[in-house]
């Protein structure tokens, strides 16, 4: 079952075309890795899915993206509701300058939950889910900025999970982290894919092989190849994919 489908998706930043006729069907409850050299459009594609590109004034989009069958660019779609369904974790950990508790509660509060007991439950559940509860349970009222980089990133994952999205977009979530923190987050994604659909941009091909079920290879704004990760890394269909994953360019 595919949860997100893009059809003939094109995107321009001003006069530069960043995405060219992207067609892709992303399966539910799985991890999809987006790989490709810098500037190939993979992050742009990711940010299109929860309409974070709306924040950039010069962006123009053609084609359609559907989430659960619904066109996400339709005028009837409330972009804030869309982002509640499709959460995002950024490249650099970006906890708000507030307490750990308030960071996690930010999303639920945004969507109208005020009840203290309910919030407490959500916070604990989200922190448990992101495997960071044991490390922070005694300091929930302390500033989130006091955590290490890896902890901050798991906090951000917990923060995204606290609004109970169906999809988590991750934009190189481990590129700013040390190997141990990276492996913790990779383990976490394996847990999460039971309940969430994860789409992750990564520059690290080993990481794509380790954790993803499907891989999409982008080059110069085109989706060159998309398919089962193992298949793609053992027998790429396209010459360009083969060149990239064998390290001939990139």
């Amino acid at each position: 079952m595919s949860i997100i489908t893009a059809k003939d998706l094109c995107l321009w930043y001003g006069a530069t075309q960043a995405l060219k006729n992207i067609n892709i069907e992303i399966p539910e409850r799985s991890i999809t890795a987006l790989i490709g050299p810098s500037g190939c459009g993979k992050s742009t594609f990711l940010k299109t899915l929860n309409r974070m590109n709306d924040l950039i004034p010069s962006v123009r989009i053609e084609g359609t993206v559907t989430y659960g069958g619904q066109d996400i660019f339709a005028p009837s779609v409330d972009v804030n509701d869309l982002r509640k369904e499709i959460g995002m974790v950024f490249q650099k950990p970006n906890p708000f300058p507030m307490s750990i508790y308030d960071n996690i509660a930010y999303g639920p509060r945004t969507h109208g939950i005020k009840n203290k007991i309910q919030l407490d439950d959500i916070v604990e559940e989200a922190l448990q889910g992101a495997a960071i509860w044991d490390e922070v349970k005694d300091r929930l009222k302390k500033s989130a900025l006091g955590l290490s980089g890896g902890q901050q990133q798991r906090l951000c994952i917990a923060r995204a999970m606290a609004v109970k999205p169906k999809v988590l977009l991750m934009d190189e979530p481990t590129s700013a982290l040390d190997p141990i923190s990276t492996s913790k987050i990779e383990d976490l994604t394996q847990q999460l894919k039971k309940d969430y659909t994860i789409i992750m941009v990564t520059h690290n091909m080993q990481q794509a092989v380790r954790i993803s079920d499907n891989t999409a290879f982008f080059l110069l704004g085109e989706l060159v190849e998309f398919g089962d990760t193992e298949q793609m890394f053992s027998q790429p269909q396209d010459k360009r994919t083969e060149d990239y994953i064998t390290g001939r360019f990139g």
Partner: protein
Amino acid sequence: MNKRNIYNWTMQILMWLAAGITAGLTLFLLGYVLYKGLPNITWELLSTKPSYLTDRIGILPDILNTVYIILTTLVFVIPLGVGAAIYLTEYASNKRVVAMIEYAAETLSGIPSIIYGLFGSLFFCQFMDLDKSLLAGALTLVIMNLPTVMRTTQESLKTVPQSYREGAFGLGAGKWRVIRTVVLPGCVDGVVTGCILSIGRIVGESAALLFTAGFAHALNGFVDALFTSGSTLTVALYMYATEGGEFGVAFAIAAILMILTLIINLSASLIGKYFERKKNA
């Protein structure tokens, strides 16, 4: 000693001299005013209003007027300045309009204050029929301080990392919620700095107020004072020195203003440090 060493030494001594003269001048001025002023500060001076019958001089009305005018100005200037700053940094998409407004604000902050006074007396006192009153004075000061508050707020809005905004948008927060919960708390320090700079300017302003707020020394409550003429400490200093020849009183007021400025600057840095600590706590 070779040439290079001589050059080094000469430059070092020159820098020392420049630093010494700067510090010396400041200390001398401060010391002189305090030396001349402090002995003239008496409880009677601080706690009474002037009376021609008993030939008494008191500056309580002037102190109160200063406080009133500071409060009134801030009440108007904070929402206006912060609102404009938020609009310019968070909403405005037309870069040329933003640049134009910023340029206008910068020009506005460079205009001599007497011109504000002239404008205020024509617009607020005559056209809006406020006569010479603390309110007219405060409104004139609002225009004068608007650029300061706007610019300091704007600068500190720009230091709020874009990643905070992205994070909040990514959780489905609407624009205003992002601004209220993530952006504004990050720029409180800038707002506070703007306010303190403004207070400093208000306390020190005389030219603009001579035109608009007048010279009366009547003791009034807040609301009455707003609609009647009244002098602030700085204006009173000018009056006592030029018209009354009361240099003792003038120096006493000068000393008080000096101490006030010191307190304002101190509290500015304390508040700044407080917010810094709170951010990193």
